[in-house]
């Protein structure tokens, strides 16, 4: 750490976020490596350090001979001001060296509202924002993460976007990069070759044209780039790289615990859920693998909690035996298990009680919609009876609170559906009054309501988001109906959800808007204290772009979509079929009941999902 960084740290909150030096952070001799890699997370340390994918890549890249992977996070406002004031460029936490001097900057795109964070970090690093402004091979600016299934709004900023899981793509890309350096290839020759690696998307090799009405006319690949970039996946998670060490932060982060991944993919097919489609096919780890990985991580980190993560943990086939065995092993060590993403219809009290022997946490369920009709539309195959049964069992065992997640603005939603939310809440309270173990303590129901955002590569990708006026009306309706004793609720900010919708279904014409908004001071937009909607609206207007065209418009069945050249494996035809089922109010059974041929299995060369 140099004196300039030290001077910055004197005046900022939580300086431990900016120092590195945490246990298990990797330090190498920079004179003995040939490839410096900066893993850039466009949000603050507490968020970035909680992200599992970064940990996997950090361990994997540092395991490669000659590669040193370091970390950089978006500085919070106070730190950014100090850095700019003192002329301190964005630096990697391990070495303190400016990331602008690195060979590869790898960004992860977790959330649309982080896009300004990418621009701000590039700028703080002294790196030109647009790919076309960077003519040499280094730094190469690469993106990955869940937003890549439509990264068109940020496509012009990146040299390469990686579609899918990085475990196999990175070694191939790094090998090519080294060869390019050796053979003194120029950047465009390198990018042309990179485009032939499966899953590698080189945005500059695609020309996009538009119709007069603003819709996409054509996406044309150049120089032998593939017409469609197909997602890369790891076939066998038991054999895939998984770190036996995580960096243990020296200050509090959001998910301060070890994590093991039960499986990737989800068999449920909720029609609003992007992860549910883009992480297919379903690939599970064996319980033996998970046990080994959990034990190794706890031994190397000293954490007192290990979380079993997945999109829907109760769907893991061996969950009970795995938990039993882990609890037996960890309980004497004062290590607890966390089991997020449980479904109410497969709620198993014995399991939850067993898992929570060391520390008791809350109950959370996500019915998502207030009526069975709407839950069928979105394919959230959860019945109210199942939810109430789960609550009954839990209340009878001594729980006295539950957190419920819903969405508003879902396709076909009526006022009756919205009022159904308060009905469910009242039924939950009545269940407590009847079965609660400790009635005198009273029940607490915490309701979280988010606003539906149509996402690319889902059946709802063709549908528009509700307007601001309509959102306000529905919000009032909800607020009036949720004034119930023992109930607290929070409703997401519409403005943020609106911008998410704009960028989730946006195209390349949004890049100048992002740049303009960033120049107007937008950054850390996920943080209420810095969110400036007026500046965003000004950016749209300055660039002559109508945000409603992206957020609120219903797209045509035959319309070319801005992300049609990117495939998650699931076919567009399958997604459209699901949309039609939704319109008819018909649910689709989960994949366990039989394969629906969504298309994802072609990624693993056939076979079947681990359901």
């Amino acid at each position, binding site marked *: 750490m140099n004196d300039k960084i030290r001077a910055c740290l004197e005046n900022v909150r939580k300086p431990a976020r900016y120092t590195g030096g945490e246990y298990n952070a990797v330090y190498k001799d920079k004179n003995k490596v040939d490839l410096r890699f900066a893993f850039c997370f466009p949000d603050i340390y507490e968020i970035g350090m909680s992200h599992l994918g970064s940990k996997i890549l950090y361990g994997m890249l540092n395991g490669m001979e000659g590669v040193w992977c370091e970390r950089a996070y978006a500085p919070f406002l106070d730190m950014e001001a100090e850095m700019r004031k003192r002329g301190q460029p964005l630096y990697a936490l391990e070495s303190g060296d400016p990331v602008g001097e690195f060979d590869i900057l790898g960004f992860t795109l977790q959330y649309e509202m982080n896009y300004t964070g990418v621009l701000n970090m590039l700028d703080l690093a002294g790196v030109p924002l647009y790919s076309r402004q960077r003519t040499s091979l280094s730094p190469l600016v690469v993106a990955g993460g869940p937003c890549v299934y439509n990264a068109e709004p940020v496509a012009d900023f990146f040299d390469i976007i990686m579609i899918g899981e990085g475990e196999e793509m990175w070694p191939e890309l790094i090998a090519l990069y080294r060869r390019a350096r050796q053979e003194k290839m120029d950047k465009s020759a390198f990018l042309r070759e990179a485009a032939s690696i499966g899953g590698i998307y080189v945005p500059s090799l695609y020309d996009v044209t538009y119709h007069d009405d603003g819709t996409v006319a054509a996406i044309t690949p150049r120089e032998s780039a593939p017409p469609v970039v197909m997602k890369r996946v790891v076939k066998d998670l038991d054999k895939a790289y998984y770190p036996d060490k995580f960096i243990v932060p*020296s200050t509090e982060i959001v998910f301060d615990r070890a994590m093991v991944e039960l499986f990737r993919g989800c068999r449920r097919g909720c029609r609003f859920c992007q992860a549910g489609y883009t992480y297919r096919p379903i690939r599970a780890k064996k319980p033996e693998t998970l046990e080994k990985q959990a034990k190794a991580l706890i031994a190397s980190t000293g954490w007192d909690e290990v979380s079993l993560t997945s999109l829907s943990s109760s769907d893991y086939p061996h969950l009970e035996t795995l938990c039993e065995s882990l609890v037996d092993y960890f309980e004497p060590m004062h290590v607890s298990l966390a089991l997020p993403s449980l479904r109410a219809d497969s709620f198993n009290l014995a399991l939850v009680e067993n898992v929570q022997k060391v520390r008791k946490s809350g109950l959370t369920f996500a019915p998502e919609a207030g009526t069975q009709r709407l839950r069928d539309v979105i394919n959230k195959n959860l019945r109210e009876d199942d939810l109430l049964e789960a609550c009954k069992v839990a209340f009878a065992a001594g729980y006295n609170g539950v957190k419920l997640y819903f969405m508003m603005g879902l396709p076909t939603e009526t006022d009756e559906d919205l009022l159904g939310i308060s009905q469910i809440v009242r039924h939950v309270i009545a269940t407590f009054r009847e079965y609660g173990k400790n009635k005198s303590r009273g029940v607490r129901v915490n309701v979280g309501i988010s606003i539906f955002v149509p996402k690319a590569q889902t059946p709802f990708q063709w549908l528009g988001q509700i307007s601001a006026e309509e959102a306000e009306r529905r919000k009032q309706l909800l607020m009036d109906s949720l004034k119930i004793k023992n109930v607290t609720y929070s409703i997401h900010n519409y403005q943020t959800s609106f911008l998410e919708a704009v960028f989730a279904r946006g195209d390349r014409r949004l890049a100048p808007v992002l740049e303009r908004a960033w120049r107007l001071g937008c950054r850390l937009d996920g943080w209420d204290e810095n969110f400036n909607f007026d500046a965003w609206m000004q950016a749209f207007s300055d660039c002559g772009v109508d945000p409603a065209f992206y957020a609120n418009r219903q797209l045509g069945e035959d319309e070319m979509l801005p992300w049609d050249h990117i495939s998650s494996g699931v076919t567009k035809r399958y997604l459209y079929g699901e949309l039609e089922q939704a319109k008819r109010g018909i649910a689709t059974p989960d994949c366990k009941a039989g394969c629906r041929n969504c298309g994802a299995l072609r990624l693993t060369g056939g076979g079947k999902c681990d359901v």
Partner: protein
Amino acid sequence: MFKVRFCFEKTGTAAYISHLDLMKCLQRSFTRAGIPVRYSQGFNPHIEMSIVVPLSTGYESKGDLCDLDLICDELPADFADRLNAALPRGMRVLSAKQADRPVNQIAYCAYEIRFPAGDEAAMGELFASPVCMEKKSKRGSREVDLLDYIKEIAFYREDETTVCRCVLAAGNDPLNPMYLTKALKNAGLVPEDAAAHYIRTGILDENCQNFYN
């Protein structure tokens, strides 16, 4: 049960670990090192430990103290080595022994403060007569004379740096060395935007002898 008191360094990046975070860091280090720590009884068992004299975030220390209950009857011979292999960068155990002296015998702390080079003679002069200042504590804020808290103070030059070595009150009514910087800045002897670098060099008893030895 064995009550161990160990002396550790906290330098470089580790200086920025806050007091609360340090507790957690140490607890995780004990776990990684396989130290046989004692957990409290009760609903939410926690490791029985305390950091003897908390240090402000950003200050380095050449010898901080931590008390810890072990479930064994004597100090494991490799206690320091094991713990050192498990600590974050910048932290190092220097020695460990039985916690014998009560911590209320701590009366002073020694510090080194480093500034950009200035007029050391004038700085010494400033602290030759009363320096009145608003001092904050848990009980509120009041006007004090810094001299009542300063046992020793000296300034000297080391290359491009002015070094202040001082011994300040600790215990019930301690003085944070940042008040000295504040006084120097108020007097115009250190530039307002200059960074000061703090290092705690010792924890002392009322005879100004090392408390730990």
